[in-house]
């Protein structure tokens, strides 16, 4: 059984006991425990079920590479799935639950899959679920969705806060092990600004566990001294619990700081995302031990040798009373020695190598009385929910059992892989180190920055240096080299510390144990624990032709789980290389992508949630709208009133009332959001002639013209009224949503194509409040305000003038988007509210009412006016909308003209704008398609039109709509069928799109 040892535990505070629960069961731990160490201390070896076969799984590692011990933590707004027990610090009251099992962890129905495993090979889903098509939707997909995924998605809103933090430094060091600390010291002493990130709460990495002496002191003392030195340096910032998550272009690095995961009730943000700009990045990210590929290597109780050592030394936890060690290297002997020193039994060390003579560590193990079996390995592990023993075989053979050894834990080590992720994120290349059987950074091909030079340097184990003395020397040299490149001078007193050297025999790569393992053994040999990928799966993929590592990865899902293959990738690559009879470096690696380890969505979002998700733009009249029943509609980043709802009416009632009142009396619209671009200069007319399809240069000062703007593809992108202010100045109104993009569009053409034209542009949108005064009483209302002559003779339709109304300095445009007598009046933004108030007073006896955007839409639809974004969708040209009258035939060129001559644009079968009138007066569903005859080649019904705008018109008391229909204008009076998504079918007749006042008499009074 796994249990807590009576003594030891360098990271524990045994005077601070904590209680926590796992699957509802109360357990005890200490401050300093991880959830994983505390579970092991409570003999909880079985911690989860695997993804595909629901096999029982236990803790394998002691760090972020953990594939199995994924937990659901917390409740409600603090629920978090897929948390690794190995990186979760224990706190009092922690609630954890295991994942991916039903009905319980101990008894799981899905485990039947493991007996079906020979029917669930690599690519099973691709092979099985292709046909027949309907089964996918109704049978396969619901089942797969139910059984897929590990943790549950949280349902409640996140109760915590998150923030972003910007930081700048000369040298960023990722990793606070001995390499990172020595690098920080050397860089810091040169005067560079240094930030050091350490993912765990502890400095020094795993060096204290592995032991040794630095400069005559114990590793632990050296770490304490170095930390004290660094803390005294103003130019050095140390952050623990902060992981270097990703390295991006030009020295941008994300750090992920877990501020309150271990003290959830403390105030402040839970996570902080560090957005760091570094002159140079040193990756001192260490190395990860590899599992060995033998049958049953996933049985709970089989762990990495380094993890076993960590649990014993750091947490005083014994993973088992009797631990068999299986290895291909010297380093793992440290585990056997640590276990022995803790008073635990190590019945045997199975060493796959055959060494000519005992190395220092082998001799040490033997001296402790441990039986060392050279050239031998594990044939298979016995036990299902817990290791009960191992069957020993010759590594060189096919798995014939030589003897069986009873044990309750197996510590395995297949060698070490440098953590090259951060080096690789931005393009650093790798090289295969044959002696150490690992990929390490190819320092001749680093990721490059803006100056074309490398900006990442690996140090220590991350660079492929595994001996303590080498690690420290490498880190020191790397940091001094980096500091020198950045223009700093290494300090005179700086020197590389000297560590005691330990003689180690070379490791020997073992990719399959035993070497000639039978299919039966390979089918129980797991490469990727989290995605249940076995040696046999990778070999099958190779056999079926998936010879590229990227294809084999996707076909087998090797390395595609939440651990991104930290344990499995190298073993998987080696297996693929073996199956292809190729060298490992020629097979290559898959791509390393950030983040290194999953980070919270909350940290990515930071403050950008709720009210601060994006800026809200408010017009000068916003507060009045708010106070007068406005129901808001977002338009771009603006908030506009959709309707003003009075007590006792629904939103729909309000819209109907607003339409009727505006048609019969007087309506006011806050039109301040319309884009107002001032275009000025000797070439302004010529410039606008290129931008609009119409001729603008012939417009006379004092006049207005409706214009259409297309992009170079010929598609309609914006419309609006252009007013000529004087000989050299135009005011271009754009749509609300288009103001910024159209301004950018115009600037782009001016700056990059016609840069020698004398034109200057200003976006004056927010400088003015603009009010549309609309309805038969509009003129009367303005006359009551008084100050200027607004008679038909003085200010005709499509004219504008400056003047004074009721004491306000105004610019009055006589334009109409409603078909009614209408004035759009601009005042300085600061006067907007006062002017609006004055209009309400003057209009009081004339039936004045404000109206919102939905009323605006109905008014324009009744008149057959198009709306950008309803009638257009980026594929519609003005000719489709019957707007040929607004396209100049005199101009040689305008943006979009050449494109509109392309054959598809000239196609007589393009859908064209018509009005649609339901035969029973109902309202057509928005976006509904009109059915044509027959079916297309895919067996789908042919469609021949669609609804682009549809409303209930209170003026006509019936549904009205506009739509684009095949040969529509030639088919007046024909009835089309529109199936709705509500199961009903609608019938509508093709009519003229102008439903109201077709002669335009009302706007011209």
């Amino acid at each position: 059984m796994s249990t807590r040892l009576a003594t030891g535990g360098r990271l524990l505070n045994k005077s601070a006991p904590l209680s926590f629960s796992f699957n509802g069961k109360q357990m005890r731990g200490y401050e300093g425990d991880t959830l994983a160490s505390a579970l092991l201390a409570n003999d909880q070896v079985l911690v989860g079920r695997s993804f595909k076969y629901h096999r029982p799984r236990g803790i394998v590692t002691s760090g972020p590479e953990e594939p199995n011990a994924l937990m659901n933590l917390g409740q409600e707004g603090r629920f978090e799935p897929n948390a690794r027990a190995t990186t979760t610090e224990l706190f009092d009251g922690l609630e954890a639950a295991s994942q991916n099992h039903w009905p319980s962890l101990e008894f799981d129905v899905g485990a039947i899959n493991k007996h079906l495993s020979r029917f669930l090979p690599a690519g099973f889903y691709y092979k099985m679920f292709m046909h027949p098509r309907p089964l996918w939707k109704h049978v396969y997909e619901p089942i797969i969705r139910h059984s897929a995924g590990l943790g549950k998605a949280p349902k409640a809103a996140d109760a915590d806060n998150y923030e972003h933090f910007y930081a700048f430094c000369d040298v960023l060091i990722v990793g606070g092990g001995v390499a990172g600390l020595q690098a920080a010291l050397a860089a810091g002493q040169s005067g560079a600004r240094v930030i050091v990130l350490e993912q765990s709460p502890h400095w020094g990495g795993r060096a204290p566990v592995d032991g040794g002496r630095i400069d005559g002191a114990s590793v632990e003392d050296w770490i304490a001294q170095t930390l004290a030195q660094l803390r005294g340096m103003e130019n050095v910032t140390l952050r623990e619990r902060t992981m270097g998550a990703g390295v991006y272009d030009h020295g941008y690095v994300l750090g992920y700081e877990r501020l309150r995961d271990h003290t959830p009730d403390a105030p402040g943000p839970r996570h902080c995302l560090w957005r760091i700009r570094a002159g140079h990045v040193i990756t001192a990210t260490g190395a990860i031990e590899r599992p060995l590929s033998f049958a049953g290597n996933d049985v709970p109780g089989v762990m990495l040798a380094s993890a076993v050592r960590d649990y014993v030394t750091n947490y005083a936890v014994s993973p088992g009373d009797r631990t068999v060690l299986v290895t291909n290297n010297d380093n793992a002997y440290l585990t056997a020695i640590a276990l022995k020193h803790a008073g635990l039994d190590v019945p045997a060390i199975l060493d796959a190598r055959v060494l000519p003579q005992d190395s220092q560590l082998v001799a040490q193990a033997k001296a402790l009385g441990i039986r060392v079996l050279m050239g031998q390995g594990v044939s298979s592990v016995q036990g299902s929910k817990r290791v009960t023993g191992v069957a020993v075989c010759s590594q060189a053979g096919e798995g014939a059992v030589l003897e069986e050894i009873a044990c309750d834990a197996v510590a395995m080590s297949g060698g070490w892989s440098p953590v090259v992720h951060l080096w690789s994120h931005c393009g650093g290349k790798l090289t295969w180190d044959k002696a150490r059987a690992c990929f390490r950074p190819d320092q001749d091909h680093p990721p490059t920055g803006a100056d074309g030079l490398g900006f990442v340097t690996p140090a220590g184990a991350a660079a492929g240096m595994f001996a303590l003395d080498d690690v420290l020397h490498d880190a020191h040299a790397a940091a001094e080299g980096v500091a020198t490149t950045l223009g700093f001078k290494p300090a005179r007193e700086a020197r590389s510390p000297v560590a005691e050297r330990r003689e180690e025999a070379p490791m020997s790569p073992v990719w399959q144990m035993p070497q000639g393992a039978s299919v039966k053994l390979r089918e129980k040999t797991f490469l990727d624990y989290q995605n249940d990928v076995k040696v046999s799966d990778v070999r099958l993929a190779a056999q079926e032709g998936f010879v590229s590592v990227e294809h084999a990865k996707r076909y087998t899902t090797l390395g595609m789980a939440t651990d991104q293959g930290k344990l499995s990738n190298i073993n998987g690559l080696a297996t693929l290389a073996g199956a292809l009879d190729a060298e490992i470096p020629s097979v290559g690696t898959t791509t390393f992508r950030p983040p290194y380890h999953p980070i919270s969505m909350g940290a990515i979002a930071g403050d950008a949630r709720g009210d601060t998700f994006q800026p809200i733009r408010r017009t000068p009249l916003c507060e009045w709208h708010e106070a007068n029943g406005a129901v808001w509609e977002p338009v771009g980043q603006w908030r506009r009133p959709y309707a003003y709802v009075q007590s006792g009416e629904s939103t729909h009632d309000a819209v109907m009332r607003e339409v009727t009142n505006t048609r019969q009396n007087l309506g006011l619209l806050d039109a301040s959001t319309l884009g107002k671009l001032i275009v000025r200069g000797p070439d302004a007319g010529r410039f606008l002639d290129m931008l609009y399809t119409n001729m603008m240069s012939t417009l006379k000062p004092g006049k207005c013209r409706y214009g259409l703007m297309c992009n170079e593809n010929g598609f309609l992108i914006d419309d609006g009224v252009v007013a000529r202010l004087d000989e050299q100045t135009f005011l271009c109104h754009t749509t609300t949503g288009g103001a910024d993009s159209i301004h950018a569009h115009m600037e782009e053409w001016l700056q990059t194509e016609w840069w020698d034209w004398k034109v200057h542009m200003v976006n004056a949108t927010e400088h003015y409040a603009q009010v549309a005064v609309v309805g038969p009483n509009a003129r009367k209302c303005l006359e009551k305000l008084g100050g200027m002559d607004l008679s038909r003779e003085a200010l005709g339709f499509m004219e504008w003038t400056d003047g004074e109304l009721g004491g306000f300095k105004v610019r009055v445009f006589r334009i109409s988007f409603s078909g009614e007598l209408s004035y759009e009046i601009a005042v300085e933004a600061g006067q907007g509210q006062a002017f609006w108030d004055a209009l309400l007073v003057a209009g009081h006896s004339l039936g004045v009412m404000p109206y919102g955007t939905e009323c605006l839409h109905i008014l324009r639809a009744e008149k057959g006016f198009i709306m950008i974004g309803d009638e257009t969708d980026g594929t519609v040209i003005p000719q489709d909308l019957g707007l040929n009258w607004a396209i100049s035939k005199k101009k040689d060129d305008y943006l979009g003209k050449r494109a509109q001559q392309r054959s598809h644009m000239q196609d007589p079968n393009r859908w064209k704008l018509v009005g649609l009138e339901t035969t029973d007066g109902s309202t057509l569903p928005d976006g509904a398609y009109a059915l044509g005859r027959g079916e297309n080649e895919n067996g789908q019904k042919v469609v021949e039109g669609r609804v682009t705008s549809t409303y209930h018109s209170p003026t006509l008391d019936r549904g009205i709509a506009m739509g684009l229909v095949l040969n529509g204008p030639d088919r007046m009076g024909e009835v089309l069928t529109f199936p709705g998504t509500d199961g009903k079918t609608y019938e509508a007749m093709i009519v003229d799109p102008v439903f109201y006042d077709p002669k335009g008499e009302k706007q011209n009074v």
Partner: protein
Amino acid sequence: MLILTCPCCHVTAEETEFHAGGEAHLTRIGPGGSEGEFESYLFMRQNPKGVHLERWRHVYGCGKWFHLARDTATLHVYGAYSAQTTAPPDHIRTAIKDRHPDWRWQGEVNQ
């Protein structure tokens, strides 16, 4: 995230302060251009793994468009220059050729 320096206002800023505008030095084809020429102008773009001359706008800064010579594979920035030109200036060509001696601007003859 790239760091770029605007050649108009000389501010050095992060990529998010800029807006990428695709390939530089396109020649506009208007009415009168053949179908082939127009298709090439509207749709065909270089997509090199290596030196790319491209358009950027300092959108959250001075608002000006400029051109950038950049290696799409190494992210090496050879320099930024005015958008108001039809060909890369000599100092940009030299900076590129220092790294890529065989690189030639369209139609440029080997010397």
